[in-house]
């Protein structure tokens, strides 16, 4: 897919975003849910399966095409993206990548149609950044397994039909190889989803804790039919997910820039639009320059991934730089709005709260720094 091919897709998404998604943002922030008719439009447009390969009914986009699409889609509040994010991200892709044929046949068609939402359950009360230390267990019992433990801050858990759960199958093995992934269907006895948590932002996308209390699953629920595959699968999709998150931040940055610039040109003080003051121009210029840098980094890394290159360092840099960038831009956007930027009625107040999460989940900025430095040192060693 080249520039000419992608433009009509971007036009289609931009139109939905401008005409339907952006106008409903304030209401979603107030009501903490995305109205069904909008979810229907997103589903019909194909946004529930943008990252699922074509042979499984998805769009089958290259990584480059995906990030271009996300730049457009994420001009709308990130809650919309979050709604389809786990399905297109680790949750859904781990089935695509390492699922058995039976697992693919059972789940992928309804995932691609947008009828089945997948949640990804890794984080626990005692294990966040140090994800490998997770303590949820899966004990073999006859042909099946029994799961025990709790998962924290799980995106889309209240609406998920399927949970990809990371659990330790070998309690002796404290390394990644002791962890397996299970596909647990909603409604399985022993699986409990707590009420949605009250959050700072991204209020339209529900997050909840999930508990497994002697939750019995059949042997077919083991992802890929092999024990010890869980973490390895998750790591495989991680670079992919980090580039994706970089693109989410770029999309939101461009939106914040639009809001910031529009307000600066409209608002008059001291007899002229505040955009004519150079201190305001400085904030717009810094934001534009950093946005362009993040965008270029994400596009280039996506192209490298499509070319089959190792992008672990660059992907972590995308997530790190783009999320720190969108946060700085969100802060300046509020500053340019003055008191109005602190009021619930403005988009930037909302987007500022939404943006804060991006430096935390899917690996904090500090963890990204660790990965970048580790990879850089590895490269250095290899060339000596």
């Amino acid at each position, binding site marked *: 897919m080249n520039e000419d091919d992608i433009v009509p897709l971007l036009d289609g998404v931009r139109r939905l975003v*401008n005409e339907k998604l952006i106008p409903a943002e304030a209401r979603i922030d107030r009501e903490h849910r995305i109205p069904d008719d909008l979810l229907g439009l997103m589903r019909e447009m194909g946004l529930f399966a943008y990252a699922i390969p074509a042979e499984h009914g998805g769009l089958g986009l290259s990584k480059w095409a995906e990030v271009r699409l996300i730049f457009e889609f994420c001009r709308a509040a990130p809650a919309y993206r979050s709604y389809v994010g786990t399905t297109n991200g680790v949750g859904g892709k781990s089935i695509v990548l390492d699922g058995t044929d039976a697992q693919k046949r059972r789940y992928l068609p309804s995932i691609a149609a947008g009828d089945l939402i997948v949640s990804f359950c890794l984080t626990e009360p005692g294990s966040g950044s140090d994800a490998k230390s997770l303590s949820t267990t899966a004990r073999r019992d006859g042909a099946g397994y029994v799961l025990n433990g709790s998962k924290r801050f799980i995106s889309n858990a209240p609406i998920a039909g399927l949970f990809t759960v990371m659990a330790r199958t070998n309690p002796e093995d404290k390394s990644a190889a002791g962890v397996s992934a299970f596909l647990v269907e909603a409604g399985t006895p022993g699986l409990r989803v707590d009420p949605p948590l009250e959050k700072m932002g991204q209020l339209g996308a529900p997050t909840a804790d999930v508990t497994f209390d002697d939750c019995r699953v059949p042997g077919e629920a083991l992802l890929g039919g092999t024990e010890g595959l869980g973490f390895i699968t998750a790591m495989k999709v991680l670079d992919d997910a980090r580039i994706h998150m970089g693109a989410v931040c770029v999309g939101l940055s461009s939106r914040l820039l639009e809001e910031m610039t529009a307000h600066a040109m409209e608002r008059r003080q001291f007899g002229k639009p505040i955009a004519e003051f150079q201190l305001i121009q400085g904030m717009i210029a810094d934001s534009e320059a950093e946005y362009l840098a993040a965008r270029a980094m994400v596009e280039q890394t996506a192209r490298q991934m499509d070319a089959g290159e190792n992008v672990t360092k660059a992907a972590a840099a995308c997530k790190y730089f783009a999320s720190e960038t969108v946060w700085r831009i969100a802060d300046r956007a509020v500053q340019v709005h003055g008191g109005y930027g602190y009021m619930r009625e403005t988009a930037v107040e909302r987007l500022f709260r939404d943006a804060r999460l991006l430096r935390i989940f899917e690996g904090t900025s500090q963890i990204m720094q660790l990965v970048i430095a580790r990879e850089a040192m590895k490269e250095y060693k290899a060339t000596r």
Partner: protein
Amino acid sequence: MKVLVAVKRVVDYNVKIRVKADQTGVDLSNVKMSMNPFDEIAVEEALRMKEAGTADEVIAVSIGVQQCQETIRTALAMGADRGILVKTDAVLEPLHVAKILKAVVDEEQPGLVILGKQAIDDDCNQTGQMLAALLGWPQGTFASEIEFADGKANVTREVDGGLQTLKLNLPMIVTTDLRLNEPRYASLPNIMKAKKKPIDEKTPEALGVDMAPHLTTLNVAEPPKRQAGVIVENVAELVHKLRNEAGVI
């Protein structure tokens, strides 16, 4: 029944247009172009007919420069079956377009042609009517509802006094008003599939249409800038200003 839908490439409705410095027309360089919104309604209506089983093929035709192909692709992405591009760089007047459409109708023999009631660039509101006259077909213009029964169509029209319903024989011409339907968003998979649908290319010459101009544009100017308003103290002052300054009473 075959349904022919005419789709025009116009400046996107979100764009704030500017007049060229020499006042010969609107500046189109680097301006986003899209399908005329009334034509989207026309495509949607044809697609709904196909989904209801009244139509079996929907053909989108556009007339103009090579890039009009993008407008046809938009119709194909919405669900039209194939496209026809009548390619010309000539300045297009409603009568040229109507004559070209007549030639296409003669070749394709559709049972119905749907057009927008007007295009948002020149607001002519003439092409559908001219086409009906050239073909000698009945016309239902400004349609807000179309119903098919017993080989005829009831077309409800939005007229000044309210709604008028006409019973028309097929084949016929319909032009769409805003309230006929709400056009769908083309889905991403359908946008990708649209690339593979066929678009036939023709020229006015091959269709035997003379493109000599009948109109000359003398001057294009921006509307006058709005003057700042004033707040009056009382009715007496308002009446005074209306009489002596505005000169309207």
